[in-house]
Protein backbone atom coordinates (compact mmCIF):
# COMPACT_ATOMS: atom_id res chain seq x y z
CA UNK A 1 0.00 0.00 0.00
CA UNK A 2 2.87 2.32 0.81
CA UNK A 3 4.00 2.04 -2.83
CA UNK A 4 0.55 2.88 -4.09
CA UNK A 5 0.38 5.98 -1.88
CA UNK A 6 3.84 7.00 -3.01
CA UNK A 7 2.83 6.58 -6.64
CA UNK A 8 -0.18 8.84 -6.07
CA UNK A 9 1.99 11.49 -4.43
CA UNK A 10 4.53 11.30 -7.26
CA UNK A 11 1.69 11.61 -9.75
CA UNK A 12 0.48 14.84 -8.17
CA UNK A 13 3.88 16.37 -7.54
CA UNK A 14 6.90 14.55 -8.87
CA UNK A 15 9.95 16.51 -7.78
CA UNK A 16 9.75 15.78 -4.04
CA UNK A 17 11.69 13.24 -1.98
CA UNK A 18 8.73 11.82 -0.08
CA UNK A 19 10.78 9.28 1.83
CA UNK A 20 12.81 12.02 3.49
CA UNK A 21 10.37 14.95 3.74
CA UNK A 22 8.93 15.53 7.21
CA UNK A 23 7.07 18.79 6.73
CA UNK A 24 5.19 18.45 3.46
CA UNK A 25 2.48 20.83 4.70
CA UNK A 26 4.31 23.01 7.23
CA UNK A 27 6.99 23.88 4.68
CA UNK A 28 4.44 24.51 1.97
CA UNK A 29 5.75 21.73 -0.30
CA UNK A 30 2.20 20.56 -0.94
CA UNK A 31 -0.35 23.34 -1.38
CA UNK A 32 -4.09 23.05 -0.93
CA UNK A 33 -4.68 22.19 -4.60
CA UNK A 34 -2.18 19.33 -4.30
CA UNK A 35 -3.95 18.09 -1.18
CA UNK A 36 -7.32 18.01 -2.93
CA UNK A 37 -5.81 16.06 -5.85
CA UNK A 38 -4.10 13.61 -3.50
CA UNK A 39 -7.24 13.09 -1.45
CA UNK A 40 -9.42 12.43 -4.47
CA UNK A 41 -6.85 9.95 -5.81
CA UNK A 42 -6.57 8.21 -2.43
CA UNK A 43 -10.36 8.03 -2.15
CA UNK A 44 -10.62 6.36 -5.57
CA UNK A 45 -7.65 4.04 -5.15
CA UNK A 46 -8.51 2.69 -1.69
CA UNK A 47 -12.28 3.19 -1.79
CA UNK A 48 -12.29 5.38 1.33
CA UNK A 49 -13.87 8.70 2.27
CA UNK A 50 -11.37 11.18 3.66
CA UNK A 51 -13.35 13.84 5.52
CA UNK A 52 -12.51 17.56 5.77
CA UNK A 53 -11.63 17.16 9.45
CA UNK A 54 -8.87 14.75 8.49
CA UNK A 55 -7.20 17.35 6.30
CA UNK A 56 -4.92 18.58 9.06
CA UNK A 57 -1.16 19.07 8.70
CA UNK A 58 -0.33 16.16 11.02
CA UNK A 59 -2.04 13.73 8.64
CA UNK A 60 -0.18 14.95 5.55
CA UNK A 61 3.24 16.09 6.71
CA UNK A 62 4.94 12.78 5.95
CA UNK A 63 4.44 9.77 3.73
CA UNK A 64 4.04 7.62 6.85
CA UNK A 65 1.31 9.87 8.20
CA UNK A 66 -0.62 9.64 4.93
CA UNK A 67 -0.27 5.85 4.90
CA UNK A 68 -1.45 5.72 8.52
CA UNK A 69 -4.46 7.88 7.66
CA UNK A 70 -5.45 5.60 4.80
CA UNK A 71 -5.03 2.51 7.01
CA UNK A 72 -7.19 4.00 9.73
CA UNK A 73 -10.02 4.52 7.25
CA UNK A 74 -9.97 1.08 5.65
Amino acid at each position, binding site marked *: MREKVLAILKGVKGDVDYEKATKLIDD*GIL*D*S*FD*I*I*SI*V*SDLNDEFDI*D*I*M*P*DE*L*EPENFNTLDAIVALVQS*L*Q
Partner: protein
Amino acid sequence: MSIVSLKFVAFAAILVAAYFLAPKRWQWKILLAASAVFYALNGIQSILFIAITIATQYCLGLALEKKNEAMAAEIEEKKPDARQKKEIRSRYSSSKKKYVVISLAVNFGLFLFLKYFDKAIGKANAWFGLGLKPLGILVPLGLSYYTFKAVGYVIDVYRGRIHAQKNIGKLALFVSYFPALVQGPIDRYEDVTGELFAEHEFDYRRFCFGMQRMLWGYMKKMIVAERAAVIIDMVQTGFAAQGYEGFTIFVAMALTWVRTYADFSGGMDIVIGFSEIFGIPMTENFRQPFFSKSMSEFWQRWHITLGAWMRTYVFYPLSLSSAFNKFGKACRKKIGDKYGKVIAPTIASFITFFLVGMWHGIGRAYLPNSLYNAALVASATLLEDVYANIKKRLHLRENSKAYRVFQSVRTFFLLIGSNCLILTKTPDMVGLIKAMFQRWNPWVFFDRSLYSLGLDQRNFFLLLWGIVIILFVDVLHERGIRIREAIARQNIIVRWAIYYGALFALIIFGMYGPDYDASSFVYEHF
Protein backbone atom coordinates in the same frame (compact mmCIF):
# COMPACT_ATOMS: atom_id res chain seq x y z
CA MET B 1 -6.80 52.73 23.42
CA SER B 2 -4.37 52.36 20.55
CA ILE B 3 -1.46 50.00 21.07
CA VAL B 4 0.69 52.79 19.65
CA SER B 5 0.21 55.12 22.59
CA LEU B 6 1.82 55.88 25.92
CA LYS B 7 -1.46 54.91 27.55
CA PHE B 8 -1.02 51.40 26.21
CA VAL B 9 2.60 51.22 27.36
CA ALA B 10 1.43 52.13 30.90
CA PHE B 11 -1.43 49.62 30.71
CA ALA B 12 0.98 46.93 29.51
CA ALA B 13 3.50 47.64 32.28
CA ILE B 14 0.83 47.45 35.01
CA LEU B 15 -0.52 44.24 33.53
CA VAL B 16 2.89 42.54 33.36
CA ALA B 17 3.54 43.49 36.99
CA ALA B 18 0.10 42.26 38.10
CA TYR B 19 0.44 39.02 36.14
CA PHE B 20 3.72 38.01 37.73
CA LEU B 21 3.17 39.38 41.23
CA ALA B 22 -0.28 37.88 41.79
CA PRO B 23 -0.80 34.25 42.87
CA LYS B 24 -0.33 32.00 39.84
CA ARG B 25 -3.83 30.57 39.89
CA TRP B 26 -5.14 34.09 39.21
CA GLN B 27 -3.02 34.62 36.13
CA TRP B 28 -5.56 33.71 33.48
CA LYS B 29 -8.24 35.63 35.34
CA ILE B 30 -6.01 38.70 35.32
CA LEU B 31 -5.69 38.41 31.54
CA LEU B 32 -9.46 38.08 31.25
CA ALA B 33 -9.99 41.16 33.41
CA ALA B 34 -7.38 43.08 31.38
CA SER B 35 -9.11 42.04 28.16
CA ALA B 36 -12.43 43.28 29.53
CA VAL B 37 -10.87 46.62 30.51
CA PHE B 38 -9.11 46.95 27.14
CA TYR B 39 -12.38 46.17 25.40
CA ALA B 40 -14.41 48.58 27.53
CA LEU B 41 -11.92 51.36 26.82
CA ASN B 42 -12.51 50.81 23.11
CA GLY B 43 -16.29 51.14 23.30
CA ILE B 44 -18.22 49.80 26.24
CA GLN B 45 -21.39 48.94 24.27
CA SER B 46 -19.40 46.43 22.21
CA ILE B 47 -19.04 44.19 25.25
CA LEU B 48 -22.65 43.11 24.75
CA PHE B 49 -21.91 41.70 21.29
CA ILE B 50 -18.76 39.81 22.22
CA ALA B 51 -20.66 38.44 25.23
CA ILE B 52 -23.41 37.10 22.94
CA THR B 53 -20.76 35.32 20.88
CA ILE B 54 -19.06 33.86 23.95
CA ALA B 55 -22.33 32.66 25.53
CA THR B 56 -23.59 31.11 22.28
CA GLN B 57 -20.35 29.29 21.55
CA TYR B 58 -20.09 28.12 25.14
CA CYS B 59 -23.54 26.48 25.08
CA LEU B 60 -23.07 25.01 21.58
CA GLY B 61 -19.67 23.64 22.55
CA LEU B 62 -21.13 21.86 25.57
CA ALA B 63 -24.07 20.49 23.57
CA LEU B 64 -21.70 19.12 20.94
CA GLU B 65 -19.45 17.64 23.60
CA LYS B 66 -22.43 15.73 25.00
CA LYS B 67 -23.18 14.28 21.55
CA ASN B 68 -19.52 13.36 21.08
CA GLU B 69 -19.52 11.56 24.41
CA ALA B 70 -22.71 9.68 23.55
CA MET B 71 -21.22 8.66 20.21
CA ALA B 72 -17.99 7.47 21.81
CA ALA B 73 -20.00 5.47 24.38
CA GLU B 74 -22.06 3.81 21.65
CA ILE B 75 -18.95 2.89 19.67
CA GLU B 76 -17.32 1.58 22.84
CA GLU B 77 -20.37 -0.50 23.73
CA LYS B 78 -21.21 -2.00 20.33
CA LYS B 79 -17.65 -2.61 19.17
CA PRO B 80 -18.73 -2.09 15.53
CA ASP B 81 -16.72 -2.92 12.41
CA ALA B 82 -15.50 -0.15 10.10
CA ARG B 83 -18.75 0.06 8.12
CA GLN B 84 -20.98 0.16 11.21
CA LYS B 85 -18.69 2.70 12.79
CA LYS B 86 -19.10 4.92 9.77
CA GLU B 87 -22.85 4.53 10.00
CA ILE B 88 -22.88 5.52 13.69
CA ARG B 89 -20.65 8.50 12.95
CA SER B 90 -22.82 9.76 10.12
CA ARG B 91 -25.97 9.35 12.24
CA TYR B 92 -24.47 11.50 14.98
CA SER B 93 -22.95 14.02 12.66
CA SER B 94 -26.28 14.82 11.06
CA SER B 95 -27.73 15.58 14.49
CA LYS B 96 -24.62 17.53 15.46
CA LYS B 97 -24.69 19.62 12.30
CA LYS B 98 -27.59 21.75 13.50
CA TYR B 99 -25.45 23.17 16.29
CA VAL B 100 -22.83 24.23 13.79
CA VAL B 101 -25.56 25.82 11.68
CA ILE B 102 -26.80 27.76 14.75
CA SER B 103 -23.24 28.87 15.47
CA LEU B 104 -22.76 30.09 11.90
CA ALA B 105 -26.16 31.80 11.77
CA VAL B 106 -25.78 33.64 15.10
CA ASN B 107 -22.18 34.69 14.64
CA PHE B 108 -22.16 35.60 10.98
CA GLY B 109 -25.63 37.10 11.33
CA LEU B 110 -24.31 39.36 14.05
CA PHE B 111 -21.14 40.00 12.04
CA LEU B 112 -23.06 41.09 8.94
CA PHE B 113 -25.53 43.11 10.99
CA LEU B 114 -22.87 45.03 12.89
CA LYS B 115 -20.66 45.59 9.90
CA TYR B 116 -23.12 46.30 7.16
CA PHE B 117 -26.55 47.22 8.50
CA ASP B 118 -25.89 50.95 8.69
CA LYS B 119 -24.10 50.91 5.35
CA ALA B 120 -27.07 49.12 3.78
CA ILE B 121 -29.44 51.74 5.16
CA GLY B 122 -27.22 54.46 3.77
CA LYS B 123 -27.30 52.77 0.34
CA ALA B 124 -31.07 52.24 0.48
CA ASN B 125 -31.55 55.90 1.32
CA ALA B 126 -29.29 56.98 -1.51
CA TRP B 127 -30.95 54.75 -4.09
CA PHE B 128 -34.59 55.00 -3.13
CA GLY B 129 -34.67 58.20 -1.07
CA LEU B 130 -36.23 56.40 1.89
CA GLY B 131 -34.88 58.68 4.61
CA LEU B 132 -34.38 55.78 7.05
CA LYS B 133 -32.37 56.48 10.15
CA PRO B 134 -29.17 54.49 10.58
CA LEU B 135 -28.76 52.81 13.98
CA GLY B 136 -25.39 54.40 14.58
CA ILE B 137 -23.73 51.05 15.24
CA LEU B 138 -20.15 51.19 16.40
CA VAL B 139 -18.41 48.15 14.91
CA PRO B 140 -16.87 46.28 17.88
CA LEU B 141 -13.11 46.12 18.08
CA GLY B 142 -11.71 42.96 16.52
CA LEU B 143 -15.17 41.80 15.40
CA SER B 144 -13.97 39.72 12.47
CA TYR B 145 -11.03 38.26 14.41
CA TYR B 146 -12.95 37.07 17.42
CA THR B 147 -15.92 35.91 15.32
CA PHE B 148 -13.65 33.67 13.24
CA LYS B 149 -11.88 32.32 16.31
CA ALA B 150 -15.17 31.54 18.04
CA VAL B 151 -16.72 29.89 14.98
CA GLY B 152 -13.60 27.79 14.46
CA TYR B 153 -13.81 26.65 18.09
CA VAL B 154 -17.32 25.20 17.66
CA ILE B 155 -16.41 23.48 14.38
CA ASP B 156 -13.38 21.91 16.07
CA VAL B 157 -15.59 20.56 18.87
CA TYR B 158 -18.04 19.30 16.24
CA ARG B 159 -15.22 17.47 14.51
CA GLY B 160 -14.14 15.97 17.83
CA ARG B 161 -10.74 17.58 17.47
CA ILE B 162 -10.94 19.34 20.82
CA HIS B 163 -12.99 19.01 23.98
CA ALA B 164 -15.46 21.77 24.76
CA GLN B 165 -14.33 24.27 27.37
CA LYS B 166 -16.43 23.78 30.51
CA ASN B 167 -15.33 27.01 32.18
CA ILE B 168 -17.07 29.96 30.51
CA GLY B 169 -14.42 32.34 31.84
CA LYS B 170 -11.69 30.43 30.05
CA LEU B 171 -13.66 30.37 26.82
CA ALA B 172 -14.23 34.12 27.23
CA LEU B 173 -10.48 34.61 27.58
CA PHE B 174 -9.78 32.59 24.43
CA VAL B 175 -12.30 34.65 22.43
CA SER B 176 -11.41 38.04 23.87
CA TYR B 177 -7.66 37.77 24.63
CA PHE B 178 -6.94 41.41 23.93
CA PRO B 179 -3.57 41.26 22.12
CA ALA B 180 -5.35 39.32 19.38
CA LEU B 181 -8.29 41.73 19.24
CA VAL B 182 -6.48 44.60 17.56
CA GLN B 183 -5.75 42.84 14.28
CA GLY B 184 -5.52 39.11 14.94
CA PRO B 185 -3.94 36.59 14.64
CA ILE B 186 -6.94 34.32 14.29
CA ASP B 187 -5.58 31.72 16.69
CA ARG B 188 -6.93 28.22 16.75
CA TYR B 189 -8.17 27.01 20.12
CA GLU B 190 -5.81 24.03 20.32
CA ASP B 191 -2.79 26.15 19.43
CA VAL B 192 -2.98 28.77 22.17
CA THR B 193 -5.14 27.62 25.03
CA GLY B 194 -2.54 25.34 26.58
CA GLU B 195 -0.33 28.29 27.47
CA LEU B 196 -3.16 30.81 27.76
CA PHE B 197 -4.63 29.05 30.80
CA ALA B 198 -1.30 27.81 32.19
CA GLU B 199 0.62 29.28 35.11
CA HIS B 200 3.88 31.07 34.29
CA GLU B 201 7.00 32.08 36.17
CA PHE B 202 8.64 35.37 35.18
CA ASP B 203 11.47 34.63 32.74
CA TYR B 204 14.04 37.32 32.06
CA ARG B 205 15.13 35.95 28.69
CA ARG B 206 11.52 35.72 27.51
CA PHE B 207 10.94 39.25 28.78
CA CYS B 208 13.91 40.57 26.78
CA PHE B 209 12.85 38.71 23.65
CA GLY B 210 9.31 40.00 23.96
CA MET B 211 10.46 43.59 24.48
CA GLN B 212 12.82 43.38 21.50
CA ARG B 213 10.08 42.13 19.27
CA MET B 214 7.70 44.86 20.44
CA LEU B 215 10.36 47.48 19.79
CA TRP B 216 10.93 46.10 16.29
CA GLY B 217 7.17 46.22 15.66
CA TYR B 218 6.93 49.83 16.81
CA MET B 219 9.86 50.74 14.54
CA LYS B 220 8.18 49.13 11.53
CA LYS B 221 4.93 50.91 12.28
CA MET B 222 6.17 54.35 13.31
CA ILE B 223 9.28 54.78 11.19
CA VAL B 224 8.33 52.98 7.97
CA ALA B 225 4.56 52.50 7.70
CA GLU B 226 3.63 56.00 8.80
CA ARG B 227 6.12 57.57 6.39
CA ALA B 228 4.95 55.45 3.47
CA ALA B 229 1.37 56.44 4.32
CA VAL B 230 2.21 60.13 3.78
CA ILE B 231 3.24 59.53 0.16
CA ILE B 232 0.34 57.18 -0.55
CA ASP B 233 -2.22 59.67 0.79
CA MET B 234 -0.61 62.54 -1.04
CA VAL B 235 -0.64 60.75 -4.39
CA GLN B 236 -4.11 59.24 -4.03
CA THR B 237 -5.82 62.40 -2.91
CA GLY B 238 -3.86 64.89 -4.95
CA PHE B 239 -3.03 63.17 -8.21
CA ALA B 240 -5.63 65.04 -10.26
CA ALA B 241 -4.85 68.48 -8.86
CA GLN B 242 -1.08 67.97 -8.81
CA GLY B 243 -0.88 66.13 -12.12
CA TYR B 244 0.96 63.07 -10.81
CA GLU B 245 1.52 60.48 -13.51
CA GLY B 246 3.41 57.37 -14.49
CA PHE B 247 6.16 56.27 -12.15
CA THR B 248 5.18 58.75 -9.45
CA ILE B 249 1.92 56.86 -9.05
CA PHE B 250 3.71 53.54 -9.45
CA VAL B 251 5.96 54.41 -6.50
CA ALA B 252 2.87 55.08 -4.39
CA MET B 253 1.33 51.78 -5.55
CA ALA B 254 4.45 49.84 -4.62
CA LEU B 255 4.59 51.66 -1.29
CA THR B 256 1.00 50.58 -0.57
CA TRP B 257 2.20 47.00 -0.12
CA VAL B 258 5.27 48.14 1.81
CA ARG B 259 3.06 50.17 4.08
CA THR B 260 0.52 47.41 4.61
CA TYR B 261 3.29 44.94 5.39
CA ALA B 262 5.17 47.24 7.79
CA ASP B 263 1.89 48.25 9.42
CA PHE B 264 0.26 44.83 9.71
CA SER B 265 3.34 42.74 10.48
CA GLY B 266 4.64 45.50 12.78
CA GLY B 267 1.37 45.36 14.69
CA MET B 268 1.74 41.57 14.88
CA ASP B 269 5.28 41.94 16.24
CA ILE B 270 3.98 44.23 18.96
CA VAL B 271 1.20 41.93 20.15
CA ILE B 272 3.07 38.65 19.68
CA GLY B 273 6.08 40.12 21.49
CA PHE B 274 3.86 41.37 24.28
CA SER B 275 2.17 38.00 24.65
CA GLU B 276 5.58 36.33 24.67
CA ILE B 277 6.42 38.18 27.89
CA PHE B 278 3.63 36.23 29.61
CA GLY B 279 4.86 33.00 28.05
CA ILE B 280 1.88 32.75 25.70
CA PRO B 281 3.01 32.16 22.11
CA MET B 282 0.53 33.38 19.52
CA THR B 283 0.34 31.99 15.98
CA GLU B 284 2.63 33.72 13.49
CA ASN B 285 0.81 35.64 10.78
CA PHE B 286 3.65 36.31 8.33
CA ARG B 287 6.53 34.35 6.88
CA GLN B 288 8.59 36.73 4.72
CA PRO B 289 5.73 37.11 2.18
CA PHE B 290 7.66 39.12 -0.38
CA PHE B 291 9.97 36.19 -1.09
CA SER B 292 7.05 34.19 -2.46
CA LYS B 293 7.72 32.50 -5.76
CA SER B 294 4.06 32.51 -6.72
CA MET B 295 0.73 34.02 -5.71
CA SER B 296 -0.33 30.73 -4.22
CA GLU B 297 2.77 30.77 -2.03
CA PHE B 298 2.13 34.40 -1.14
CA TRP B 299 -1.24 33.50 0.35
CA GLN B 300 0.50 30.89 2.51
CA ARG B 301 2.93 33.50 3.83
CA TRP B 302 0.70 36.57 4.17
CA HIS B 303 -1.99 36.80 6.87
CA ILE B 304 -1.35 33.12 7.49
CA THR B 305 -4.03 32.61 10.12
CA LEU B 306 -6.82 33.95 7.91
CA GLY B 307 -5.61 31.75 5.04
CA ALA B 308 -5.41 28.72 7.32
CA TRP B 309 -8.91 29.40 8.69
CA MET B 310 -10.33 29.68 5.18
CA ARG B 311 -8.53 26.53 4.05
CA THR B 312 -9.61 24.47 7.05
CA TYR B 313 -13.21 25.58 7.35
CA VAL B 314 -14.18 26.65 3.81
CA PHE B 315 -11.91 25.44 1.03
CA TYR B 316 -11.39 21.82 2.15
CA PRO B 317 -14.98 21.08 3.21
CA LEU B 318 -16.23 22.67 -0.01
CA SER B 319 -13.76 20.79 -2.22
CA LEU B 320 -14.58 17.47 -0.55
CA SER B 321 -18.34 17.98 -0.53
CA SER B 322 -20.26 15.45 -2.56
CA ALA B 323 -21.41 18.05 -5.09
CA PHE B 324 -17.84 19.16 -5.80
CA ASN B 325 -16.68 15.57 -5.81
CA LYS B 326 -19.22 14.59 -8.47
CA PHE B 327 -18.48 17.70 -10.49
CA GLY B 328 -14.75 17.04 -10.28
CA LYS B 329 -15.17 13.46 -11.47
CA ALA B 330 -17.33 14.59 -14.39
CA CYS B 331 -14.66 17.13 -15.38
CA ARG B 332 -11.94 14.52 -15.26
CA LYS B 333 -13.98 12.22 -17.45
CA LYS B 334 -14.76 14.94 -20.00
CA ILE B 335 -11.42 16.69 -20.40
CA GLY B 336 -8.93 14.28 -18.94
CA ASP B 337 -7.13 13.95 -15.65
CA LYS B 338 -4.62 16.70 -15.93
CA TYR B 339 -6.90 19.69 -16.43
CA GLY B 340 -10.13 18.11 -15.26
CA LYS B 341 -8.98 17.76 -11.72
CA VAL B 342 -8.10 21.44 -11.38
CA ILE B 343 -11.49 22.84 -12.31
CA ALA B 344 -13.45 21.93 -9.17
CA PRO B 345 -10.76 23.17 -6.73
CA THR B 346 -10.45 26.34 -8.82
CA ILE B 347 -14.12 27.09 -8.34
CA ALA B 348 -13.78 26.30 -4.63
CA SER B 349 -10.78 28.59 -4.44
CA PHE B 350 -12.69 31.36 -6.19
CA ILE B 351 -15.46 31.06 -3.61
CA THR B 352 -12.85 31.12 -0.84
CA PHE B 353 -11.14 34.21 -2.21
CA PHE B 354 -14.53 35.83 -2.57
CA LEU B 355 -15.23 35.19 1.12
CA VAL B 356 -11.80 36.57 2.00
CA GLY B 357 -12.81 39.65 0.03
CA MET B 358 -16.08 39.88 1.94
CA TRP B 359 -14.17 39.54 5.17
CA HIS B 360 -12.31 42.70 4.18
CA GLY B 361 -15.46 44.53 3.24
CA ILE B 362 -18.30 44.26 0.77
CA GLY B 363 -17.59 46.20 -2.36
CA ARG B 364 -17.85 45.62 -6.06
CA ALA B 365 -14.04 45.61 -6.34
CA TYR B 366 -13.80 42.36 -4.45
CA LEU B 367 -15.50 40.28 -7.10
CA PRO B 368 -12.92 41.00 -9.82
CA ASN B 369 -10.16 40.83 -7.25
CA SER B 370 -11.17 37.36 -6.07
CA LEU B 371 -11.43 36.23 -9.68
CA TYR B 372 -7.97 37.66 -10.31
CA ASN B 373 -6.43 35.82 -7.36
CA ALA B 374 -8.21 32.53 -8.01
CA ALA B 375 -7.22 32.70 -11.69
CA LEU B 376 -3.57 33.33 -10.84
CA VAL B 377 -3.48 30.49 -8.33
CA ALA B 378 -5.16 28.10 -10.75
CA SER B 379 -3.03 29.19 -13.71
CA ALA B 380 0.09 27.84 -12.02
CA THR B 381 -1.36 24.34 -12.37
CA LEU B 382 -3.29 24.81 -15.60
CA LEU B 383 -0.42 26.37 -17.50
CA GLU B 384 2.31 24.23 -15.97
CA ASP B 385 3.32 22.77 -19.35
CA VAL B 386 3.33 26.15 -21.06
CA TYR B 387 5.57 27.62 -18.39
CA ALA B 388 7.88 24.62 -18.51
CA ASN B 389 8.14 25.04 -22.27
CA ILE B 390 8.94 28.75 -22.02
CA LYS B 391 11.58 28.08 -19.38
CA LYS B 392 13.16 25.43 -21.58
CA ARG B 393 13.26 27.70 -24.58
CA LEU B 394 14.77 30.57 -22.64
CA HIS B 395 17.25 28.21 -20.98
CA LEU B 396 16.15 29.34 -17.52
CA ARG B 397 17.51 27.43 -14.61
CA GLU B 398 14.85 27.21 -11.93
CA ASN B 399 17.28 26.93 -9.07
CA SER B 400 19.42 29.89 -10.04
CA LYS B 401 19.38 32.87 -7.70
CA ALA B 402 18.50 35.27 -10.49
CA TYR B 403 15.41 33.25 -11.36
CA ARG B 404 14.31 33.19 -7.70
CA VAL B 405 14.65 36.97 -7.51
CA PHE B 406 12.71 37.28 -10.75
CA GLN B 407 9.91 35.15 -9.26
CA SER B 408 9.69 37.32 -6.13
CA VAL B 409 9.63 40.51 -8.19
CA ARG B 410 6.98 39.03 -10.48
CA THR B 411 4.83 38.19 -7.46
CA PHE B 412 5.22 41.76 -6.24
CA PHE B 413 4.03 43.11 -9.60
CA LEU B 414 1.06 40.75 -9.57
CA LEU B 415 0.22 42.11 -6.11
CA ILE B 416 0.31 45.66 -7.41
CA GLY B 417 -2.14 44.48 -10.06
CA SER B 418 -4.43 43.24 -7.33
CA ASN B 419 -4.12 46.62 -5.65
CA CYS B 420 -5.21 48.39 -8.81
CA LEU B 421 -8.32 46.22 -8.90
CA ILE B 422 -9.20 47.07 -5.31
CA LEU B 423 -8.68 50.76 -5.94
CA THR B 424 -11.09 50.79 -8.85
CA LYS B 425 -13.94 50.66 -6.34
CA THR B 426 -13.84 54.44 -6.19
CA PRO B 427 -14.40 56.14 -9.56
CA ASP B 428 -11.60 58.66 -8.88
CA MET B 429 -9.14 55.84 -8.57
CA VAL B 430 -9.83 54.62 -12.09
CA GLY B 431 -8.35 57.94 -13.15
CA LEU B 432 -5.37 57.29 -10.92
CA ILE B 433 -4.65 53.97 -12.59
CA LYS B 434 -5.11 55.49 -16.04
CA ALA B 435 -2.67 58.26 -15.12
CA MET B 436 -0.18 55.62 -14.01
CA PHE B 437 -0.19 53.88 -17.38
CA GLN B 438 -0.42 56.85 -19.69
CA ARG B 439 3.04 58.21 -19.13
CA TRP B 440 6.58 56.86 -19.18
CA ASN B 441 8.59 59.17 -16.95
CA PRO B 442 11.52 57.28 -15.41
CA TRP B 443 13.28 60.62 -14.78
CA VAL B 444 11.17 61.12 -11.65
CA PHE B 445 13.67 58.83 -9.95
CA PHE B 446 16.46 61.33 -10.61
CA ASP B 447 14.98 64.83 -10.70
CA ARG B 448 14.07 65.09 -7.01
CA SER B 449 10.35 65.19 -7.74
CA LEU B 450 9.82 62.22 -5.38
CA TYR B 451 10.82 64.52 -2.53
CA SER B 452 7.77 66.67 -3.14
CA LEU B 453 5.26 63.97 -2.19
CA GLY B 454 5.02 64.93 1.46
CA LEU B 455 8.41 63.62 2.60
CA ASP B 456 11.51 65.75 2.17
CA GLN B 457 14.80 64.21 1.06
CA ARG B 458 15.86 63.26 4.60
CA ASN B 459 12.56 61.58 5.40
CA PHE B 460 12.40 59.89 2.03
CA PHE B 461 15.81 58.34 2.62
CA LEU B 462 14.80 57.31 6.12
CA LEU B 463 11.87 55.48 4.57
CA LEU B 464 14.15 53.79 2.03
CA TRP B 465 16.61 52.76 4.76
CA GLY B 466 13.73 51.41 6.81
CA ILE B 467 12.59 49.29 3.87
CA VAL B 468 16.13 48.02 3.31
CA ILE B 469 16.43 47.02 6.99
CA ILE B 470 13.07 45.24 6.96
CA LEU B 471 14.13 43.35 3.83
CA PHE B 472 17.48 42.51 5.37
CA VAL B 473 15.83 41.11 8.50
CA ASP B 474 13.48 39.09 6.29
CA VAL B 475 16.46 37.70 4.37
CA LEU B 476 18.03 36.59 7.66
CA HIS B 477 14.76 34.98 8.78
CA GLU B 478 14.39 33.28 5.42
CA ARG B 479 17.84 31.75 5.93
CA GLY B 480 16.75 30.45 9.30
CA ILE B 481 18.86 32.85 11.35
CA ARG B 482 17.29 33.66 14.71
CA ILE B 483 18.20 37.28 15.27
CA ARG B 484 17.17 37.61 18.90
CA GLU B 485 19.17 34.56 19.85
CA ALA B 486 22.16 35.95 18.00
CA ILE B 487 21.78 39.20 19.96
CA ALA B 488 21.51 37.25 23.22
CA ARG B 489 24.89 35.65 22.51
CA GLN B 490 26.63 39.06 22.36
CA ASN B 491 28.29 40.57 25.40
CA ILE B 492 26.42 43.02 27.58
CA ILE B 493 27.84 46.17 25.96
CA VAL B 494 26.88 45.15 22.42
CA ARG B 495 23.45 44.03 23.62
CA TRP B 496 22.63 47.28 25.35
CA ALA B 497 24.06 49.29 22.48
CA ILE B 498 21.56 47.53 20.21
CA TYR B 499 18.66 48.13 22.63
CA TYR B 500 19.52 51.81 23.05
CA GLY B 501 20.13 52.23 19.34
CA ALA B 502 16.70 50.80 18.55
CA LEU B 503 14.98 52.82 21.26
CA PHE B 504 16.60 56.09 20.19
CA ALA B 505 15.90 55.36 16.53
CA LEU B 506 12.24 54.98 17.51
CA ILE B 507 12.20 58.15 19.59
CA ILE B 508 14.06 60.25 17.02
CA PHE B 509 12.67 58.88 13.77
CA GLY B 510 9.25 57.61 14.82
CA MET B 511 6.34 59.72 13.65
CA TYR B 512 4.44 60.82 16.73
CA GLY B 513 4.31 63.73 19.13
CA PRO B 514 1.71 66.08 20.58
CA ASP B 515 0.58 67.40 17.21
CA TYR B 516 0.85 64.07 15.46
CA ASP B 517 -1.96 61.57 15.56
CA ALA B 518 -0.56 58.11 14.90
CA SER B 519 -3.03 56.61 12.48
CA SER B 520 -4.66 53.39 13.53
CA PHE B 521 -3.63 50.09 11.97
CA VAL B 522 -4.92 49.27 8.51
CA TYR B 523 -6.15 45.87 9.65
CA GLU B 524 -7.78 47.22 12.80
CA HIS B 525 -10.93 47.99 10.86
CA PHE B 526 -11.72 44.45 9.81
